[in-house]
């Protein structure tokens, strides 16, 4: 906990591993050939619309939001799996967005990703040895004679048996496949891993196994995670800090405990109170949201949340709220939360 205290300001550089600054990812279909032929003007999708984040070394930042809010796009843009439109991603002092192909390839040894769907993210025609060993071979970090030994070690680290190496993905259950995905991400001994909904495709009892594995690995290997999920209890369990995303913007960030016990942004409050609790503790005064997430093609002007916000005022429709830091460590973008 004391470590979290030190890092909330995010200024002390020896603690900061990843600094995302005003990152933007727009998908533009306005100038396509198809548009010219059909006369369809196309659209501009503001998937990630100016996001700034700080992740401290050895910590987990949980990124939460509804589907379509841009959280996966953000995770991928940070790794440059999707090329960001603008903004910067500083990883350990290096701006990742400015790297050329060779340096980016080297940088990828240090930053990896675990994908959401363990059924779609493993090549069905390759053996587990190939799937996990490919990165080792491509990056030239292990001699081909050593690869088998490395894969054996990795499989043991994630709780699989070495003789699983010769099998194919279809011979494994969902939970085991996700372990393979984790082993693949760990192969290059990275410092930072983007976990993109790693447990949402799994059953409850298996989900707990994988969360525990990720938590253990983080401690043993000193990893830093960006943990993307729509499940608040999972995020709450694994994260040190939480960032709440809505339609391409971060609306609130702060230490896990503060976000969960005393959220300030109306959207965070609504999100938290919508979670059904096993102990029945959540049934009290539920902040109800009406309607659906608006489209990121033509997001609402001003505060993007004003169309669903139970407390929206005129000001909210006109001006986009700035982020401001509150006393309890939360940073909130809302006109109604002034912090005084």
């Amino acid at each position, binding site marked *: 906990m004391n470590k979290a205290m030190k890092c909330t300001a995010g200024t002390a550089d020896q603690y900061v591993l990843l600094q995302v600054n005003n990152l933007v990812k727009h998908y533009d279909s306005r100038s396509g050939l198809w548009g010219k032929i059909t006369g369809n003007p196309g659209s501009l999708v503001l998937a990630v619309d100016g996001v700034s984040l700080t992740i401290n070394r050895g910590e987990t930042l949980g990124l939460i939001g509804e*589907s379509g809010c841009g959280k996966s796009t953000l995770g991928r843009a940070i790794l440059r799996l999707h090329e960001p439109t603008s903004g910067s991603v500083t990883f350990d002092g290096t701006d990742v967005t400015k790297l050329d192909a060779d340096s980016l390839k080297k940088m990828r040894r240090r930053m990896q990703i675990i994908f959401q769907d363990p059924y779609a993210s493993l090549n069905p025609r390759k053996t587990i040895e190939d799937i996990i060993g490919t990165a080792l071979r491509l990056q030239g970090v292990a001699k081909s004679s050593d690869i088998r030994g490395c894969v054996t070690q990795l499989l043991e680290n994630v709780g699989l048996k070495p003789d699983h190496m010769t099998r194919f993905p279809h011979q494994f259950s969902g939970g085991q496949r996700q372990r393979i995905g984790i082993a693949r991400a760990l192969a290059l001994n990275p410092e930072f891993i983007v976990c993109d909904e790693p447990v949402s495709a799994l059953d409850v*009892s298996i989900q707990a196994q994988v*969360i525990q594995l990720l938590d253990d690995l983080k401690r043993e290997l000193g990893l830093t995670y960006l943990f993307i999920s729509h499940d608040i209890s999972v995020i709450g369990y694994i994260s040190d800090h939480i960032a709440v995303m809505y339609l391409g913007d971060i609306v609130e960030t702060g230490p896990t405990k503060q976000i969960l016990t005393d959220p300030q942004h109306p959207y965070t409050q609504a999100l938290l109170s919508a979670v059904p*609790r*096993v102990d029945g503790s959540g049934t009290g005064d539920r902040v109800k949201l009406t309607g659906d997430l608006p489209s990121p093609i033509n997001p609402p002007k001003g505060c993007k949340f004003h169309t669903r916000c139970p407390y929206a005022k005129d000001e909210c429709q006109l001006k986009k709220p700035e982020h401001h830091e509150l006393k309890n460590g939360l940073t909130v973008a809302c006109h109604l939360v002034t912090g005084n």
Partner: protein
Amino acid sequence: MTEAQPILSISNLQTRFATRYGLVTAVDGVSLDVMPGECVGVVGESGSGKSVTFASVMGLIKPPGWIDGGSIKFEGQELVGMSERSYRSLRGKYIAMTMQDALTALNPALTVGFQIMEVLLAHDSQISGSARNRIREARARVIEMMMLVRIPSPETRLNDYPHQFSGGMRQRMMIAIALACRPKLLIADEPTTALDVTIQAQVLELITDIRQTLGMSVILITHDLGVVAEYCDRVAVMYAGQVIESGPTKSVIGQPSHPYTQGLLRSIPNLANLDKRIRPIEGQVPELIDLTPGCRFIGRCDVREVACTQRVEMRNIGQGRTVRCIQPKGNVQ
């Protein structure tokens, strides 16, 4: 227990499938009663047989599957072995089911208005007269149903196709179709699994509201214990084709008796107490092919004994609770 007769009574249901790998007993001796006006939650992980149980109730089990034994009674009427013709007059009118995954369950080539109207024209005897008259009447009812599930401007939206609606709205459309004839029992199969939490809350509260206004019974099939805890009166926990524990929601979740239910509850991070470490259940759900007669959970259980290799029957442990375990202890934490 009151004198009231259960609206749905499943007893000792066996549903099997012949596959090329062997005989799969997807549902093995499931018994469950649903009282009028009650909301019963059925929880279990994938492959636990919860969907197949209710596909059996709806008469939707087709070869290579068949119902191998047991009985399903709806208001005293036996459904197992009933003719397809009789089933057709029952389904949609008295028992309705919303299918998992609203994103694919609606027909993409037909307008949603038509899909709701279809049910009404097939079942509702109050809609009568000339063809034009019937359609006009049915249309009015469709608008009423769409208003009930809170679709904005239903008069224009009934001519839209499913892809023009969001996920939450499509799920509400499915509910509108299911409720069109005011059934006495609604079976909702994972109604919110594909939805975000804020939309999930909207849909579940809608189902609860309608249940109370129409006085119908609801069976909520889900894998989310939180959903059960908040919305269901009673719960049945399924594991590998069997109900392994059932009873009033509060007492089952507060003091689970079966080691599997206990393990399941320990696997979920508790938002109110995040310092409490989760404890996963080790191992995996067994294959349902060529099962041994003993307890299905034996391979993953911490407290197993030799006697667990024998067939374990459902036992009554008082206060309306039953458990399929030879040594149900109190709350082992």
